[in-house]
């Protein structure tokens, strides 16, 4: 009887530690700036999170590419800048930095501009991508506007600071 209670207590403590650990992890890893945290940017929907096995529901056709590189989960959320420019942030949590590097390199094209952001960053007219540790992040605007490049950079820095 005593043994059973002791055993249950051990299990309960272990479970609590696991839950708390995961909870802390999640809090630390929420990379999405809240509305107004970055000037002009509003977060317009709830963050959606896809485990690797469910990634096809978000990016079917691209999911295998991420899975092969060791994606653990992908989080995404939509934003607007000053009420008109729409953008999306994708944060891919990889199993390690190598996977993040592989994903970033795959997206590299000749017109990419290298930027100082995270461990390595790339900028295009309508998007910013970077990796930091095991994270690889892509911030994409749906339109090309005169202020898109600068606004996206500010948002990307906001994400980078939270990783």
């Amino acid at each position, binding site marked *: 009887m005593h043994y059973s209670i002791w055993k249950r207590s051990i299990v309960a403590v272990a479970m609590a530690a696991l839950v708390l650990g995961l909870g802390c992890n999640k809090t630390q890893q929420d990379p999405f700036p809240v509305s107004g945290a970055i000037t002009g940017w509003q977060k317009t929907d709830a963050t959606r999170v896809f485990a690797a096995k469910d990634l*096809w529901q978000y990016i*079917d*056709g691209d999911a295998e590419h991420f899975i092969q590189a060791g994606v653990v989960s992908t989080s995404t959320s939509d934003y607007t800048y000053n009420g008109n420019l729409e953008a*999306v942030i994708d944060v891919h949590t990889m199993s390690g930095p190598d996977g993040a590097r592989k994903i970033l390199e795959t997206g590299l094209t000749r017109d990419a501009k290298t930027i100082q952001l995270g461990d390595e960053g790339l900028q*295009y*007219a*309508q998007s910013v991508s970077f990796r930091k540790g095991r994270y690889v992040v892509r911030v994409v605007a*749906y339109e090309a506007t005169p202020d898109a490049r600068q606004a996206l950079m500010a948002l990307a820095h906001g994400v980078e600071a939270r990783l």
Partner: protein
Amino acid sequence: MKNRREFLKGTGAVLLGSQSAFALAGSLSSASADQDASSAKSKVVIARDLALHGQGSEPNEQRVINLLDHAMTTYTGRDPKDAWKHVIAMGLAQDKVIGLKVNGLGSKGIATHTALIMAVAERLQLAGVKAGNILVWDQNAHFLEACGMTVNTDPGKIRCYSSEVAGFEEQESSWGVARIRITKILTRECATIINLPILKDHSMAGVTFALKNMYGVVDRPFTLHADNCNPAVADLNAIPVFREKIRLTIGDAMSSVYDGGPGFHPERLWYPNALIVGEDRVAVDQTAWGILERKRAEVGMPTLEAAGRPPRYIATAADASHRLGTNDPKRINLVEV
């Protein structure tokens, strides 16, 4: 009430086992109407409006309607209203639900344009279709949202919902390597489907357009990706309900991504400013593949073959065991306007 197969049997139509249901019920295409089956070519119309986008990234709505009318008139040889009445009649869809299968997987940046969806819906209504008998659908609500659509199940308006709402058939369907469950939107709710894909490069299939758009119809599309989606794309489309109900493709090539697809990569976005219309989805895809390759060559990119993802499923779809259409350019009557 006769089902479709019984109806066709009653009309004396002969199942040739080839091409789409139009081979059974006749063709919308003006050119093939007076040709015999052995010499008939599959007609594909590419209609372009180089001023479609103006200065913005969204096409001008009125110009999209005009482009659609131009494409349909060219394809059918009829005035727009009559053309759409013919679409309804050929789909055996009088007073029945007509589905518009869109594609929003690539997010707002590269999804079937709202302007095209609404133009088709408007023209169907002008031809006598009740708003509630038009059902815009895709795999999930987010994809529909990417196409600028809001979920609506009110039968008094144009309806719009996904397979998440309708559910999938309990029983698996299979053909070749394809073993999937099909959305009830296709199997039960719609009498006929107008296919509204958007032209994109695809990281595995090479090209995604008319045939590949059917991946959004099944419960586990990720099971169909092996070997560059070949023969899975062809096998899926060979399942009888796809053959019978996917009637007409009005392909959205107003904007496209020539690399990095199927997701949205603005640095690889371009504006072909075109609609590609046809009943033979293999011929439509063969034509679209050519457009994509020309763009890749123009920007100095390797061919899809060299990139390791040639869309071989197109030839497979045309082979003797699938007979979904033709990929032979000599048998495609390509009309560009």
